[in-house]
């Protein structure tokens, strides 16, 4: 993996709250992390953890409530609308649903061309079209498909169109919001391999959002686990899988269905259901379901600490390194 080592994205205390009838919904609650250029950070969690909101808030497709996103040294929140639009060339997104992420009335060539046209990168119409063909080659779409409409293509091909669109402006950073979850297993593998190749060839940095742990392990350098809007653990993939520190991560890992009939492990089952993200108490949000819950967990919210080198966790069971 191309690791240039420079920090490309720094997220500091990012919060996104929604006002709903019942109160304030803490969708993303005080999330901080850094992401180096050329690497992939996987964000995992189940429904309601806020990972999708996080991805969109970082790109300012949703306005954050508070906190900072520093991309390539620039504070994104301080940019005005046209500066932000200019910045978007470097930060793109691949969506989850190949059925609703493409305009049904535009051919795939038109869809891929639009970002190039809007950015004014290639004024000449023919040259621009050649670039569209280049992009289609890169993602493995045949030339003869230029004038097809999304409904004529299957999910895997549509997703390739989405990837081509995201690559059109030569971005440095791509948020991948569950890009393969809607696809069949055999197609998922094709798309993941494609994305890895693109990263290798173009040095792209990915934020890979998913609920599928087996996929994220394969695809990410580091993994961050989210629960009810908070970041509960972050570590390099191998470290997370071999020695998870947070009880939720342990349960999550043990819940992955394994396609094997021998050496199966006992599942750690969680009690109960997700607590509400609306007006949460300042205590550990996982306490109600945790089988290792201590007294302090129901009284204080655990801060995110570095328990091992480069291994962060927000849990009262662990102490910061060196203490």
């Amino acid at each position, binding site marked *: 993996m191309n690791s240039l080592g420079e920090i490309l994205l720094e997220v500091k205390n990012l919060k996104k709250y929604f006002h709903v009838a019942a109160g304030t919904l803490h969708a993303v609650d005080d999330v901080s992390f850094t992401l180096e250029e050329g690497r992939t950070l996987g964000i995992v969690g189940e429904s309601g953890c806020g990972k999708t909101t996080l991805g969109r808030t970082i790109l300012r497709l949703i306005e954050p409530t508070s906190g900072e996103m520093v991309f390539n040294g620039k504070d994104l929140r301080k940019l005005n609308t046209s500066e932000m639009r200019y910045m978007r060339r470097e930060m793109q997104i691949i969506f989850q*649903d190949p059925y609703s992420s493409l305009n049904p009335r535009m051919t795939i060539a038109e869809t891929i061309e639009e970002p190039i046209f809007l950015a004014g990168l290639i004024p000449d119409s023919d040259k621009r079209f050649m670039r569209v*063909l280049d992009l289609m080659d890169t993602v493995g779409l045949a030339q003869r498909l230029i004038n097809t409409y999304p409904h004529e293509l299957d999910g895997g091909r549509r997703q390739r169109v989405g990837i081509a669109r995201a690559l059109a402006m030569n971005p440095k950073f791509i948020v991948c919001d569950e890009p393969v979850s809607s696809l069949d297993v055999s197609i998922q593998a094709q798309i993941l391999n494609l994305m890895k190749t693109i990263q290798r060839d173009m040095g792209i940095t990915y934020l890979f959002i998913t609920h599928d742990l087996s996929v994220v392990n394969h695809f990410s350098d580091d993994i961050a686990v989210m629960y009810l809007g908070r970041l509960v653990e972050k570590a390099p993939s191998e470290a997370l899988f071999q020695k998870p520190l947070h009880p939720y991560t342990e349960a999550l890992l043990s819940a992955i269905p394994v396609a094997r009939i021998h050496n199966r492990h006992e599942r750690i089952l969680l009690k109960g259901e997700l607590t509400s993200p609306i007006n949460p108490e300042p205590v550990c949000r996982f306490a109600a379901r945790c089988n290792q819950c201590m007294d302090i967990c129901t009284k204080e919210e655990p801060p995110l600490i570095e328990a091992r080198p480069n291994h962060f966790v927000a849990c009262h069971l662990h102490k910061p390194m060196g203490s």
Partner: protein
Amino acid sequence: MQATSTARPFTTKKEFYAQFKKKSIAHELWLRFLKNKTAVMGLIIFCIIVAVAITAPWITNYDTVVIKMNIAERLQAPSMNHWFGTDELGRDILARIVYGARVSLVIGISAIFVSLMVGLVLGGAAGYYGGKTDSVIMRGTDVFLCLPDVLLALAIIAAFGNTKLNLTIAIGLAFSPKFSRVVRSAVIGVRDNEYIEAARSIGALDKRIISRHVLPNCIGPIIVQVTLYVANAILTIAALSFLGLGIQPPTPEWGNMLASGRTYMRDFPHIVMAPGLAIFFTILALNLLGDGLRDTLDPRLKH
């Protein structure tokens, strides 16, 4: 970027497009529409009415036949000379029906066109921006929706005078809030799709998003409503003219023909049957057409 693995047979976009043609969505929809027999019937009837309206000056002479009184020939039953008979002033009813079609269609279609434009702007803004914009616009249109079309048109005509233009504007205003609602709900249905977010993420401005991404995907329900509202508009015109507030005699209009024929209805029913049937068939044709369009464009049946 990796070298292209496929050879490029052409160098210009035009050549590529000529080789790999676009499949016409319109053509496929047309074929689907044709399978619906009642809808096709509606279309045919409507086309006949339009054709008749357009060729009116060639079919008959306005001054001599349509408005010139001819007392000697009054109240004749349908015959070879006068296919629909003559009215109480001796005028050929068929000729009057033909010219009446012009009036109804021109005013009906222009009025709906006006209200469609207004509806696109208001409904589009309300649906796309939501929030306060939506509330303000919708409460405004709610006020107008409370008023019956006829009363609203009445008020405007009373205030500004009875001309064809005023009539068109009046009906246009009456239908604007209805269109706003239709457009708004269509926009809301489209707005939450991810491709709208995608457009924003590649730097498209609102104007482009609305014109290129939102509206083209809303056309379906809007087109259906256009046909149905044209039918309504024609009915409203007839109602107003019937009450003496729309098109004034001697200009023929199906509504005012009904009004003037009313007194003779019992002994000479043909005078009211003709305009009555004309209205009936026009409305029927438009409704069948509208329903057919709705079925054709139903997204659930797609692909």
